[in-house]
């Protein structure tokens, strides 16, 4: 009984101690404090790898009155959920907030919550710093520039040389150009491949469909933010082509980035793959050493070119130091800095000067047969002529409507039933 008294007192004491420690020890300051002597605190939020670690240290060195906190989240999902929560709460966002291209459509109609970078950013930072389509895609639906472009994911086509050879299809760089010259040619080659080997041509219908839709002049939403699904011939045509290919057995029916998809690389489950620049690393890691030299990448991409991925740096209105934040973001997205980030983590630059730099042009990949990937992807980036407008809900339609619907088709749902699912789902999102 005695010791219980002691136990309880001990417990209470520990609680008080813990709470005190917590109160004192919890040092993290919130975004944007202003200390003494003009000391400015900035915070920047990123996800996965932007390659900014050394750059931040350098910026602090160049600007001794600025202290930067880097808020890094491993995965994009939790990161964007955090972003949305704080947008909803009205506080807590960093001074510089990275937003991925796929999520940009989430904020495109909330431009009022973000600063217009042409107003608060350095005056010498103009549109010609970036590829035109990248710059345009950083604007909100009112035409205000709310994001400085960081990196991009120009599309190329990866293919298994050995599998194509075994099927009697050309596998040399010149030969595959014919195979991949257009989507019709691509799917026709797929039919041939299936006929000769009985094995799938590509990994997932959704991957190809997304690339195809991205190349259209008008995407899921038009400039008035109206749904175009039922009147957009490009989308329906892409849908028909892809679902026909699935019906012909061309799809390995794997869900991109799922467990089985990763295994699929090892198991040589498919022969071609849409490859944005960042996918090269993924292919290499998933396919492993056993398949080294078997994968190749070509700049012959059906429809010309395209882009998947990339991000922007935004400065929310919540920031207490918008001007300094914009300067910082502008510095980070300058060609020199982006090249350093590219060297560190492989994020492909979107800045025109960076694309012509020798450092980029000389970049090769041993895994892909020493292909000159820097040059290749720079070319692919230039092939993209315009930014497709991605209205509010665009990203959602792709993630939650068309991709699952194509999955359903791969799982056996009839294509027209799945199309109805797409239309219903998209209407619900855009209502």
């Amino acid at each position, binding site marked *: 009984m005695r010791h219980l*008294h002691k136990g309880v007192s001990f417990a209470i004491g*520990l609680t008080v101690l*813990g709470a005190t*420690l917590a109160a004192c020890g919890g040092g993290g300051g919130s975004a944007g404090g202003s200390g003494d002597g003009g000391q400015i605190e900035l915070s920047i939020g990123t996800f996965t*790898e932007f390659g900014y670690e050394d750059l931040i240290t350098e910026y602090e060195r160049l600007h001794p009155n600025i202290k930067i906190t880097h808020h890094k*989240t*491993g995965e994009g999902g939790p990161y964007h959920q*955090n972003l949305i929560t704080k947008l909803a709460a009205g506080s807590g966002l960093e001074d510089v907030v990275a937003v991925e291209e796929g999520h940009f459509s989430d904020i495109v109609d909330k431009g009022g919550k973000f600063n217009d970078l042409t107003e608060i950013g350095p005056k010498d930072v103009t549109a010609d710093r970036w590829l035109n389509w990248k710059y345009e895609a950083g604007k909100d639906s009112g035409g205000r520039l709310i994001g400085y472009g960081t990196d991009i994911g120009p599309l190329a086509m990866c293919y298994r040389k050995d599998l194509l050879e075994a099927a009697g299809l050309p596998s040399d760089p010149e030969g595959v150009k014919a195979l991949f010259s257009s989507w019709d040619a691509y799917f026709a080659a797929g039919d041939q491949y299936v006929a000769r080997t009985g094995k799938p041509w590509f990994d997932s219908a959704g991957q190809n469909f997304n690339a195809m839709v991205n190349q259209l002049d008008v995407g899921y939403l038009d400039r008035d933010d109206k749904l175009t699904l039922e009147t957009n011939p490009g989308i329906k045509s892409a849908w028909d082509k892809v679902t026909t290919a699935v019906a012909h057995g061309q799809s390995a029916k794997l869900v991109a980035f799922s467990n089985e998809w990763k295994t699929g690389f090892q198991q040589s489950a498919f022969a071609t793959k849409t490859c944005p620049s960042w996918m090269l690393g993924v292919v290499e890691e998933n396919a492993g050493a056993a398949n080294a030299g078997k994968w190749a990448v070509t700049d012959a991409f059906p429809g010309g070119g395209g882009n998947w991925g990339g991000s922007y740096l935004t400065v929310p209105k919540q920031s207490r130091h918008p001007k300094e934040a914009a300067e910082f973001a502008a510095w980070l997205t300058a060609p020199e800095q982006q090249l350093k980030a590219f060297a560190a983590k492989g994020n492909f630059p979107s800045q025109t000067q960076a694309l012509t730099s020798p450092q980029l042009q000389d970049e090769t990949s041993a895994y892909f047969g020493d292909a000159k990937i820097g040059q290749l992807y720079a070319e692919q980036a230039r092939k993209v002529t315009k930014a497709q407008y991605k209205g509010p809900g665009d990203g959602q339609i792709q993630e939650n409507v068309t991709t699952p619907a194509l999955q359903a088709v791969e799982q056996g749902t009839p294509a027209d039933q799945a199309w109805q699912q797409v239309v219903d789902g998209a209407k619900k999102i855009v209502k």
Partner: protein
Amino acid sequence: MNTRIGRPNFFVYAALTVFVLVSLFPFYWSFLVASRDTSMLSEHIPPLLPGGNFFRNAARVFDAVEFWKALGNSVIVSGTVTLTTVLFSALAGFAFAKLRFRGSNPLFVFIVVTLAVPTQLGVIPLFIAMADLGWAGHLQAVIVPNLVTAFGVFWMRQYIVDAVPYELIEAARVDGCSVFRTFVSVVLPAIRPAAAILAMFTFMMSWNDFLWPLIVLNPDNPTIQLALERLQSGYYVDYSLVLAGTTLATIPILIVSSCSAARSWPASCKAP
């Protein structure tokens, strides 16, 4: 004397062994991957024995994230939350179970009903509240919302209702004990098994909490799950690194659980 019913035979041990093996499997598997290479995951026939990489991967974990700081924060948060939850739940549970007061039934039902509210959207208003209080970024933002839970109160009340007979309480009252003295001398010893297990649950839940700390804490003040999540950056995740991290992070839970479980026997004497 603690008489447990029945003498366990072979089948009992067999059944328990199967159950525990199935429970343990993910931990062993995590250790397996952590001691080898991520490429092991793609192999059709996975290996069954650990490799030699564990310490190397563990060292990488320490390099990649502020492991000790995050661990310390998690210990503070989870430790505090566990202590307060058990204590306050026992207090409230005792009051609802054994003390008569106006409104006891409606208040208790209210507490149970709050459990039914889905919490996914709550992060938004909760963050607003924390920001208003100026706690965003500090550990109290993670501690205070979890100081006492409806789950704990509900459980303690159900447990105390039967585990502490009225006779004992009456005896204590007759002896002149104050209510608090009764609580400490009669109730606390009697609820040791439930308190120990509630401590285990609360500690584990707090230790593994991810979403709320992600939203409300800052990067220089992470808990262990936040620090580990940073290991998953990049389009290609190095699972041997990530699972090395989670294996390391599970060790404190095992320690706390074992200590709690060891104390989850009823006290030998119930009389004060």
